[in-house]
Structure formats: structure tokens, C-alpha cells
């Protein structure tokens, strides 16, 4: 689960990591009173959306006075923002973070993530702050410093020295201390909140030598939300596709994509492979939907309903390899959904595995109109044929 910048910065502040003074703005009328509370001008006005690349999309504005501030707010608030990471329609900006301007001397990158290969949290530090870290990694990998953390000891002060003294220009003693303390706090925050990613880009050193987190990105491990009820409440469903929100409520793994072939599959790996097969057949998947290993009849019904709500869908492929999920349960779920909704697109069903005979029989004896595929190859062929037929 992603947090907004302002949410992450509130957590930073509680953890003692310095951030610029700022206020959240959700309506234009409040701009005057918000600006009164923040030192400036200059001010920085930042769109609060989960999508990255906000700067490139014009979602971060430096303003030099009240007039400019009002203009920026008028242009951003409740308007779509298009960034390299959004669709062409962009995402609607519902909230702005208004902050004081900061006198920047140097910019760094400071991040923490879990290294899958080493199986431990790893701190990443780079003097190339303010740029996309992926680009830095590609173009000058020697400017990316890493410190893996032994989970038994936690973050140790020597590790901060390992990172800071790699800089070609080591900052003064006061700044070194501030950086070192920030790293320790970042590690503690990362672990305490079950983060999967924590990024400050840029982490700046001001002309006075102080360290300030100018940006903040935090992603919480979804699997750990059960023990962070307070964080779970920070979820912003407005950032998600409405169909994805529906699916989430039904415990279904659903991701909306750009094509027109709806797909319902059990198991994440098979669901991905089915998307790939659809694409190979010359069509585009409309979604990723994994109904899971142990889906119930209700979950199947719900999943099918969600696919049908997507108006772009022109054919549906159901690909089930019954293991824990039995084929007869799947068949009953599909019939239940068909009763509630008119299915006006071709339905292609491929069933295999546990109770496959019973599942096929249930579908055949119903008045549901569908095509049977015996294997993945045939399923792909039928999908391709349907797409061709419909032009």
C-alpha cells in the first residue's frame, strides 16, 4: 500500500526526521490561511498523487507570491495530472501539499528496501539526489552506495560511516552527524512500519548544513497491514481503479489493463501466463484476475461480475486448473453470476484438474452459451478467432 507524501512526512516528523514546514490543502478557499501559517514566499505546491514522475508532469510548482500560488492551485486542484507513470487521461489531484521553500546546498538520495537476494533490509545512499535512482543505477552505478542490514543486530552506526565517507566530498562534522542520525531513524521507521520501500529523493543539505527530507515515499507491505491498523486507514481508494477497489473488498487479485479480453484464472502464475497467451494470440487482456487457490462460489461470482462491469470487454476467457479450487465450484459460481447479469460477450471456458468432469457437466447442462477449450492452445485459438470475427 502506497502512502501519500504528506502522510509519509507526518510519520517522518514523529520519528524526528526533519521535513519542510507544510500544510495540506484540499480546497481553494483555504489557500490564504494555509499560506499565513507557512514561512515564505517562496513556497512549493505539490500534487498529492501516488503516481511517480510528478515533477515532469508539472505537479510540483515553485511559487514566489500569493498570486502565483493561487494560479498554481487553480491549475492543479481537482484537475487531472498526467505524468510519465499515469495513463494519458492522468489522475485527478484531490490534495495539495503546500510547503516552505528550502535553501538547498546539496541533494542526496536516501532509500531503504528489502534486498531479495541477500534476504535483508538494505540502505541505499547516493550523491546523485533529485534524479531518478533507476537512471543513476544505469548510468553511474559507482554513485550508488549500499549497506545491507543484519536483522539480528539492526542498523549500526559504522554502517552510516561506510556510506557517508564514500562521498568524494565529505560534508562537515555537524552534517555528518545529522546524516548519520537520519539513516538510523530511517531504518527504525522502515522496520516499525513494515515498509517494503522508503525513499527520500532528494534528501537535502541546506546552506546552514542541516539535513531535510524534501520528498518522502513510503510503501507498506500489504501482508503486514493486519498489525498496522493505523496505517491501513491511510489508504486512499481514490487513487485506484473503481473495479480494483471492488475486487479488493472481495479478496480478489484484480488489476485493470488496457485490452478487451476479460480473463478469470486461479493462481497468479497461471493468470500471468494466460495474459501472455492472449497477447500471443493477437489480442490484449483487459485485466489480470487471480481468484486464488481456494476461491469460494461467491468469490467466483463476484469476480465474474467485476469482469462484466468493464465495458471494454468483448470476450471472456476462464482458465481454471483445479487444485484446491474445484472445477464444480467454479462452474456453479459462473452460473450464479450469469443469472444476475446478461452476458452479451462470447465466453470461452477451459477447465482442468480436480472435479473437472463434474464442472464441465454443470456448465453443459445449463443454458449458458459458451465455448469449451480443451487446453491452453485451444483457448488461445478461440480467443484469437473471436477477436478476428468481431474485427
Amino acid at each position, binding site marked *: 500500500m502506497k502512502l501519500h507524501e504528506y502522510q509519509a512526512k507526518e510519520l517522518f516528523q514523529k520519528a524526528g526526521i526533519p521535513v519542510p514546514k507544510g500544510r495540506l490543502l484540499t480546497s481553494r478557499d483555504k489557500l490564504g490561511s494555509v499560506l499565513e501559517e507557512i514561512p515564505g514566499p517562496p513556497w512549493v505546491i505539490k500534487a498529492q498523487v501516488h503516481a511517480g514522475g510528478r515533477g515532469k508532469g508539472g505537479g510540483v510548482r515553485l511559487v514566489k507570491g500569493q498570486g502565483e500560488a493561487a494560479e498554481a492551485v487553480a491549475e492543479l486542484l481537482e484537475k487531472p495530472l498526467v505524468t510519465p507513470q499515469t495513463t494519458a487521461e492522468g489522475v485527478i489531484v484531490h490534495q495539495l501539499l503546500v510547503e516552505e521553500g528550502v535553501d538547498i546546498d546539496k541533494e542526496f538520495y536516501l532509500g531503504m528496501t528489502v534486498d531479495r537476494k541477500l534476504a535483508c533490509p538494505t540502505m541505499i545512499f547516493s550523491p546523485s539526489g533529485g534524479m531518478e535512482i533507476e537512471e543513476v543505477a544505469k548510468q553511474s552505478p559507482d554513485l550508488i552506495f549500499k549497506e545491507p542490514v543484519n536483522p539480528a543486530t539492526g542498523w549500526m552506526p559504522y554502517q552510516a560511516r561506510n556510506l557517508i565517507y564514500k562521498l568524494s566530498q565529505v560534508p562537515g562534522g555537524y552534517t555528518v552527524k545529522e546524516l548519520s542520525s537520519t539513516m538510523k531513524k530511517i531504518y527504525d521507521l522502515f522496520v516499525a512500519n513494515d515498509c517494503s520501500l522508503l525513499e527520500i529523493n532528494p534528501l537535502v543539505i541546506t546552506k546552514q548544513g542541516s539535513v531535510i527530507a524534501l520528498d518522502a515515499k513510503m510503501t507498506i507491505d500489504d501482508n503486514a497491514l493486519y498489525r498496522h491498523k493505523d496505517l491501513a486507514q491511510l489508504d486512499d481508494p481514490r487513487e485506484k481503479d473503481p473495479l480494483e477497489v471492488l475486487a479488493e473488498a472481495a479478496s480478489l487479485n484484480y488489476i485493470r*489493463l488496457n485490452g478487451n479480453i476479460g480473463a478469470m484464472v486461479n493462481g497468479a502464475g497461471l493468470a500471468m501466463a494466460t495474459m501472455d497467451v492472449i497477447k500471443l494470440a493477437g489480442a490484449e487482456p483487459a485485466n489480470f484476475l487471480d481468484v486464488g487457490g481456494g476461491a469460494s462460489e461467491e468469490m467466483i461470482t463476484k469476480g465474474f461480475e467485476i469482469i462484466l462491469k468493464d465495458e471494454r470487454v468483448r470476450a471472456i476467457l476462464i482458465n481454471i486448473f483445479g487444485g484446491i479450487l474445484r472445477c464444480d465450484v467454479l462452474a456453479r459460481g459462473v452460473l450464479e453470476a450469469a443469472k444476475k447479469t446478461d452476458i452479451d460477450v462470447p465466453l470461452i471456458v477451459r477447465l482442468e484438474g*480436480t472435479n473437472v468432469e463434474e464442472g464441465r457437466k454443470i456448465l453443459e447442462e445449463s443454458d449458458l452459451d459458451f465455448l469449451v477449450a480443451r487446453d491452453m492452445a485451444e483457448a488461445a485459438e478461440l480467443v484469437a478467432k473471436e477477436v478476428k470475427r468481431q474485427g
Partner: protein
Amino acid sequence: MSILVDENSRVVVQGITGREGTFHTQQMLAYGTNVVAGVTPGKGGQKVQGVPVMNRVAEAVEMEGANVSCIFVPAAFAPDAVMEAAAAGIRVIVCITEGIPVLDMVRVANFVKEKGAMLIGPNCPGIISPGKTKVGIMPGHIHRQGSMGVISRSGTLTYEVVDQLTKSDLGQSTCIGIGGDPIIGTSFIDHLRLFKEDPQTEGVVLIGEIGGTAEEEAAEYIRAEFNKPVLAFIAGRTAPPGRRMGHAGAIISGGQGRAEDKIEALQAAGITVVLNLAELGDTAKQIMAGQ
């Protein structure tokens, strides 16, 4: 032969009194798996499907000689269950549980390694040596004893692959689902090493997916040290970046974990990569016939 589990495996099921634990104990017994004990703290003395239930894994080891564990414990308690098994001296631990927090797995993975145990999973279908034993949740009937090793990050996708292999007259020595989480107990390479030494295994099918760099590392190992034919499939070529595709570990992030890079690395190591899943069985048959 086969790897890790066979007819001599004595399985303890942790979480045996739960719905999943009970159902799959019955399924494993039906397959012929030697389930010697179950563990649910506080329920010692009961019986499930005729299997004695104990309070601790250590008792199952002492009293029934358990040497393999299969874990169906809910995510919040699974880390403790895995560590209990490792501490009790179980050498092969299979964790089916999905949804364990990553930072818990960091501690678990390090602990298990210290104890010298092999952890399969979490978030996996388990391991089966067809005709000998099944430790996990895969449908047993699609497997057939034979010479192909299968290693996979996925569940149902593995069933699909095994089904195609069996229908192409290619039986399996051992099939392992290593799990779909970012941090798992054992990697492709851990199992490739074992398949290399296993005389029954003549070829290996490797099933990967987007996320991480485990496939690239496996490719490097195969190129340098593995001497049997390998066939690979990578799921998620059409997955959008930045989205978690069902599995916690299946995400393309920061330009890493893309299917194309994995396929390229595998091909560069001389490994045949099947691009269309529907053709996997036939391709495997051709490769093995050429040996």
C-alpha cells in the same frame, strides 16, 4: 532417487486441525504420504484422519521420527511455526502459508539457514516426488513418476506444466514450488544443485515469473555448472511495471524483474525458453528425445 522427499519421508503437518490442514492431510494420506504426526499447540492427544496430534514439533521428531514438515499455519503465526520446525531438527520444511510479512521472512530465512534446514516456500504448493510422496497441496493425479525435475515460483502454473509433461509421456522425478514471495527459503539454484546429483533426473523445467533476479542467477549457475538439459518458461511478459501481479514477489520495480531480461539471460546461457505456454509439453518432448 528423487530430491529432498521420497518414500522414507516422515511428515509432520503443522496446523493439522485447521480446515486446510485437515483436508490436505487427508489428500496426502490418500496419495500414500507417510504423515506420522500433526502439531497444533494445545490440541495434543487428539487425532486427525487417524494421525496423532501433538503440542510441539519436537515431540513429533522424538516420538514419531518426523523429518519433513508441512505448514498450514495462518500468516501471523507461520514464522514461529517455521522456526519451531527448524529448531526441532526438521531438515525439509515446506511452508504453504500465503501472506507472511516480508520483514518476518527476513528473520525466518536467516534462522533456518543457521539451523541448516531447507525451507521450501512460503506461499507455495509444496513438493512432490511422484509415486513416492506428496508434501503439499498439488493435485497428485496429474503427476507421473519419471525423469523430469520441475522447479517453479508458482502454484497452478506448475500444475499446468506438469499436466503437459505427463500428457507428453514425460514423468517427473521431483516437482518443487519454491514460492511466490519476495523472500523465500530456497532458490532455483539450491534445487538445481540437488537435481544435478540426482541420477533419476535427466532434465529440468524451470518456471519463473516477473520480479527479482532469481532467474538471471539461475541462468548463470546453469551456464557455469549444470550439465542436464533445461527448459524454461517465464510468466508475465505482458505485466505492467509497478503493479504487484497477485504474488507478493511478482512486481517489476525500478526497471528490475522484467520478463524480457530473464528470457534474454536464460537464452544467453543456452537454455531453451518456451514463449507460448501451450507448447511447453511438445517442446520438452523434443528436447528430451534429442538427448
